[in-house]
């Protein structure tokens, strides 16, 4: 297996996002991680589902890196999931391709953590907004890993960004080193 981890980055304007750009460069620096810049690969929002399924087949972990736009991922990531997680592959009859693979979200938000709480601007904890992704993982038989969240991305200090980047890096290193449950079970 060439690259056990697929790191999908979904940001329509990566040049403008310091945090997402930094995390993408960290992902690129780790051996065993394939980085897919979604808006670069599909600038016209046309997602080639079968090509993406091939890409995922030999991976043990999927990481989705994105900013929160209106309480969800940017549109193209949803389109990517819609086109890629198809019947007979991700779910339904013979749809077992994702079973046992890990899914982890790596998220950057504009607001501070306290805005995601009762009485804050967004009323609910971020975790609740991530429910569709969590359920998608469960529905497809994937292992849900704790999301990595970087709050208040634009206003943060450089040191914080570097520290978070290091955290991401060590997570990636672990994931590259650890085969998924399924492979462990098959003794691969």
């Amino acid at each position, binding site marked *: 297996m060439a690259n056990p981890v697929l790191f999908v980055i979904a940001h329509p304007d990566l040049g403008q996002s310091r945090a997402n750009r930094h995390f993408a460069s960290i992902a690129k620096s780790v051996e065993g991680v394939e980085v897919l810049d979604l808006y670069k690969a599909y600038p016209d929002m*046309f997602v080639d589902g079968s090509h993406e399924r091939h890409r995922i087949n030999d991976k043990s972990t999927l990481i989705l890196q994105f900013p929160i736009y209106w309480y969800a991922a940017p549109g193209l990531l949803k389109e990517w999931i819609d086109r890629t997680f198809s019947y007979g592959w991700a*779910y*339904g009859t013979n749809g077992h391709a994702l079973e046992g693979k890990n899914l982890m979200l790596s998220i950057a938000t504009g607001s501070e953590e306290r805005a995601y709480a009762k009485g804050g601007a967004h009323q609910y904890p971020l975790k609740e907004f991530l429910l569709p992704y969590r359920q998608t993982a469960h*529905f497809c038989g994937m292992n849900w890993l704790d999301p990595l969240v970087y709050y208040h991305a634009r206003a943060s200090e450089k040191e914080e960004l570097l520290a978070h980047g290091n955290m991401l890096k060590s997570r990636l290193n672990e994931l590259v080193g650890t085969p998924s449950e399924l492979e462990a079970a098959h003794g691969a």
Partner: protein
Amino acid sequence: MEHSFLLACFIFLSAAVIVVPFAKATGLGSVLGYLLAGIIIGPFGLGLVTDPETILHFSEFGVVMMLFLIGLELQVRELWSMRNKLFGLGLPQVLITALVIALIGYMASMPWQSAVIMGLGLALSSTAIVLKIIEERGIMATNTGRSAFSVLLLQDIAVIPILAIIPLLALPELVGHTPTDDGHGGAATAEGGWQVAAKTAFVFATMYLSGRYLLRPVMRFIAKSGVREIFTALSLLLVVAAALLMEWINVSAALGAFMVGMILADSEYRHELESDIEPFKGLLLGLFFISVGMSIEFGVLLDNPVLIASMVIGLAVIKMVILWSLGTIFRFHVADRMLFAIILAQGGEFGFVLFQFATASGALLPEHADLLNVTVAISMVITPILILIYDRLLSPKLVKDNQTDREPDDISVRNRVIVLGYGRFGQIVTRLITAQGFDATLIDHDAEQIDLVKRFDTKVFFGDARRADLLAAAGANQAHILIIAIHNPNTVTEIAAMVKKHFPHITILARARDRNHAHELMDEGVTDFVRDTFHSGLQLGIKALVALGYEEHRAHRLAKTFARHDIKMLHEAYELKDDMEAMIGHARSAKELLAQVMESDLVDLDPANANNWTSEKIPDDIERENKARSQE
């Protein structure tokens, strides 16, 4: 000349052909090569040519052409933006240098009139040598290049008032035997002031008006005729006419050519003019350097070796100190300052003219003029040597230390995008790019098309884009991308191959006609191409599907799937292009594959599969869901 014309040509050309490449290869630079060739064949070398003055006079026309070309490159508003450097760097350089040298002359018991002329004459640098070096190093767009050019330009302008005041500086004891019929300046003073003014105003007005309104229709007419050498003839005629007009009003021909060039700088024929004049300029300038080499009077040098050596060194040191100080005031980086000081630290060809004229006007003793001419000639020879020393010894240290704070190149001088072919295709590409604020240099070879788009305020240059020299004149050395939007596929391929060879740094984006042409372009290493009717065909296909009852989005998606498949097949077929059988087989299987690909894309989100989500049909999913819930 005692030799026949052909023999003289043979001597000059062989000297250049033998010595210059050798000088260039050993790192001495072409200017030094020409000068050496001149010394070798001159009266004090092998003595093959004995009449350097005639040739010097003839070849000075190379300097005129060079100034014409510089004028072409410089629009009036660019000149305006240089005003600080012209008057801040150029004027003090001339005045201070002249003053210092004149004082030294006066203290060495020269008559004050002659001392002033010596100061003014030696303050001028050599436009020919300096610009040739700037061009060879490709630093015209840098701070050093622009600053040096500003100084040279101001010096060229200064020649006019200097020539005007020389007759006033005539020495009383020489006036008696001044040859009255010699020199054009003498004639000028004989006329009344208002006559001169009227003549000058008339000439400049004529030049400006004809440059603006008369030349364009003429050039268009000639361009339409399609006879290329006539356009070249016209280009030469323009320069010669400008020089003649200027001579008539006693202004330096070089300055006149510069002004005509500037008037034509915003004309659509600018790049064509540039590439036509360029080879003539190059050869004549070479000839000019050779004649400077030949005209060094080694007799005078041998009689006064110490005096001349100290004059040459003194001249270089005084000039360098003054230039260095000016560079410091203008806050040049130390490496730039050094180059700026070295590059301009010589006497110039206008010095020869001034000293000759001053002798004729009785303002300078002939023996002084001889000494000064030799000094200027030698100082011209040592400039390339000093540059060599700078490159080998000084610059590596200076540049290494301060590489980060060097001034960035002035990219505004050149556009980053060149578009070849401004027809229906090129216009669409260009409008998209220029709407983002990029400047594009547009080139087309159809004079009527150029006229047509001019009505919409679009500037398109006339020229044959298959010529490397034309592309160089259009700035291909500095450009980032080159868009070939020409209709004829053979021309597109030819240009792509030529550009890959001469300007390998440029990204080529090409218009391909069809599949075969796309393969030809791939042969040339072009990877960014679009078949010119492919996408418009697809767009109409989408409309057809919609008319047939497909939803808009579905139709778009099918077209997109088709396009991706087709482009993939294009690249696959390229691998097989030498095997006709295999290619036909590939085309057949590609057709079948297309049906499959399009069907598989339908399946992904097909509403027919919507019942997949109803729980009865997929018990294992419910089971899995339950399992997931119980984990929470």
